[in-house]
């Protein structure tokens, strides 16, 4: 049974993005990527899974339970952690406080458990350790992205939803980030990754789906997707760098 399954999901968000009958699944232990141009519905998909948007039709199943009618607070408690697009770290709280709040869905933590948890995150993201007591808004984009992922991981999720983690980041930072994503995956977290940077996404994922204006158009393994001409033309562009 897949860990996460979307069956024929349709949802609307404002007037720009919409999903039309999207079906996909993620098995335990995988990294699956969701590709597509801006406006294709990738973010909408994640927001529908995490409960920020209620789908207009279709079902979402997680670990054998239906979750499409639940509130975000309940969904995160079930083990889905959504790191949304645009970092969204709390600007007026410190790095440490941001990470601590990531543990909210785990319920009450003892002081020791909290300290250990934060330490673990600094271990995975050493670059932000020196900012531990700095306010979130003073960090750069890349540092904020790492903080956002750390905060999402602090929930010890069964499924991590990453929304365009590379957006606005320089190539070398992106590679560090994706190396970290690979490491998180190796430690046992299942990941559904939404990305515009198709190169990087397909370098970590085993499987992928392609969305075009709300419809699922292509799905397959990484090598299948890399060979697909349509996909390549629209997203890989045939250029290097």
């Amino acid at each position: 049974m897949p860990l996460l399954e979307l069956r024929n999901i349709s949802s609307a968000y404002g007037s720009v993005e919409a999903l039309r009958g999207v079906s996909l699944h993620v098995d335990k232990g995988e990294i699956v990527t969701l590709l597509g141009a801006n406006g294709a519905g990738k973010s909408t998909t994640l927001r529908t899974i995490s409960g920020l948007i209620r789908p207009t039709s279709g079902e979402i199943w997680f670990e054998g339970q239906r979750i499409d009618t639940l509130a975000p607070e309940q969904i995160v408690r079930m083990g889905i952690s959504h790191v949304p697009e645009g970092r969204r770290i709390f600007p007026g709280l410190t790095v440490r406080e941001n990470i601590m709040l990531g543990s909210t869905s785990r319920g009450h933590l003892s002081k020791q458990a909290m300290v250990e948890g934060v330490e673990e995150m600094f271990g995975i993201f050493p670059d932000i350790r020196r900012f531990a007591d700095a306010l979130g808004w003073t960090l750069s984009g890349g540092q904020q992205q790492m903080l956002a992922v750390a905060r999402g991981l602090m929930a010890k999720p069964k499924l991590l939803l990453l929304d365009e983690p590379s957006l606005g980041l320089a190539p070398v930072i992106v590679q560090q980030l994706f190396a970290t994503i690979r490491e998180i995956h190796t430690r046992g977290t299942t990941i559904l990754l939404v990305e515009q940077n198709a190169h990087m996404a397909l370098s970590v994922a085993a499987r992928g789906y392609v969305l075009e204006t709300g419809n699922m158009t292509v799905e397959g393994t990484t090598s299948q997707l890399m060979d697909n001409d349509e996909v390549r033309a629209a997203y890989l562009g045939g250029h290097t760098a």
Partner: protein
Amino acid sequence: MSAAAATPVALARARSNIPGLILLAILAIAFPLVPYVLHVSDYVLNICMNSVSYTMAVLGMVVVLGYAGQINLAQAAFFGIGAYAVGLGTVVWGLHFWVSFMLGLGAAAIAGLVLGLTTLRLGGHYLAMITISFQQIFDLVLTNWIDVTKGPDGIPGIEPPALLGFHLTDKRAYLLFCAAVLYLLIWFVWWLPKTRLGRAMRAVRDNELAAETIGVHTLRTKVIAFTISAVLGGIGGSFYAAGFSYISPDNFSFLRSIEFLTAVLLGGAQSPFGAALGTVLIVLLPEWLRFLKSLYLAVYGLGVILIMVFLAEGIWGLLRNTFQRIRKPVAPVIGAVPVLHFEIKAQSDRAVLKLENLQKHFGGLRAVDGIDVEVAAGTVHALIGPNGSGKTTSLNVVNGIYRPTAGRIFLDGIDVTQMKPHERAGLGMGRTFQNIRLFQTMTALENVMVGGQRDNNPMEGGREALVTRALSALDFVGILHRAHMIVRSLPYGHQRLVEIARALAAHPKLLLLDEPGAGLNQTEKQELVGLLKRLRGHGLTLFLIDHDMGVVEKVSDRITVLNFGKKIAEGTPQEVLRHPDVIAAYLGEGPANAAARA
């Protein structure tokens, strides 16, 4: 599009709505004439007089709130200034009506100016509080400064004015006169959004930062809107005083300001007709709801909440939306459009943009730590670097959104370091934003027109020329056919193009582009590269930030690389992309290597 000689652009007339206009005209003419034909009681005449004078004040709310998006909770005070000017002027000081009237307008205008100038630099909350405070002080003064204002006793015996020697003592005649003035004001408020000022107001309402950056004097625009509102309030008050012959402080209280606000919200803040509709309702409601006795005001308060929850655009907005859903408006036909003209002077030795030891610190964080850059005329200069290297901050400082901690910025030799963003736009600095900042409720054409409204835009002619220029800009970026669509409904890629067109309409000397490729897919990015090359071909100087090396490599003449707020390399793409420091700090491995390691 064709390179045909510039023919006058065929602008479509406003959607033909003849039946509606005729109906409106009939009603408008009939209204003040009815009392001459039928016998109406004084009571009804008073209600009409109330409605007419209040509507003038509510029109002020349409301008300041509906168009410019600023709250004004002191409209009753401005109304009162006009009323007391006439009352004191004619009864106490023995002045002629029209002299008192002008005094009142002057006083209202000055009060509006002073309030506006002090508060409009700040956010909406401040304005709300200050206007309420002003209203309260006005009330205090009216009630307590008995020597001058006659205090709670008020001023009786105010007489209606004479018009060309003809005394308007007949209530019906006075009503007719006031109605005529009202119609004039309605026309003015209806016409305002189509003017430069009106568009500037709407731009400020929709996205103040973008408006400021592309050359709108946002503070001046807001202050003008607020002052117009105050003056309209004063006009209403003056006519009110002469119409009811007795005024006292309780007519000009905070509650009255709330009534004006409720009227404009109930009727529809975006339209003078909504204002009229809302005012009539507000005047009639106390009569209809008389049966509620002492609960009336409590129900009123509840009603305000309900209007906000359920009727955001007011009744007029509701009617208009329903009407448009039934009869879909047809997009006007656009004829041939002249090719976009670029006003680029001959290449000079002087750098178009020069940054001298630019620094920007946020507390302890040195986001920009002393950079020197010169951008030669007619070139594309890219600023790249890892995240946190200071690129976006640099751009924001160049643009004027941030004040630099130290250092100077020269635009074509002029020191712009202390200038506000709109002043820099007025010298030819254009900009697009990473997160697209368009004026969402306006059409693509209107958005681009606002861009062309910057100071010193080298362009002759009035509105026609502005429209033509805007259409040419839209044509240049390839979306002329979308000119009349509201930008909110355009796909992302097209919104990006509208933003670029908006910058082009201003004849920029320098165009700052903040991640122009953000959010575009590969095909769109290729088209963008083509567009940027065409711009360079016309002699425009571009200064851009982007992370997509493919785009940067193809389009740039020169690249400056930042890391940790400092410049670490500079040169042609070939030089820079091979520089060991740059490779180490920034480029890293290509994805092929990364994939191999997976």
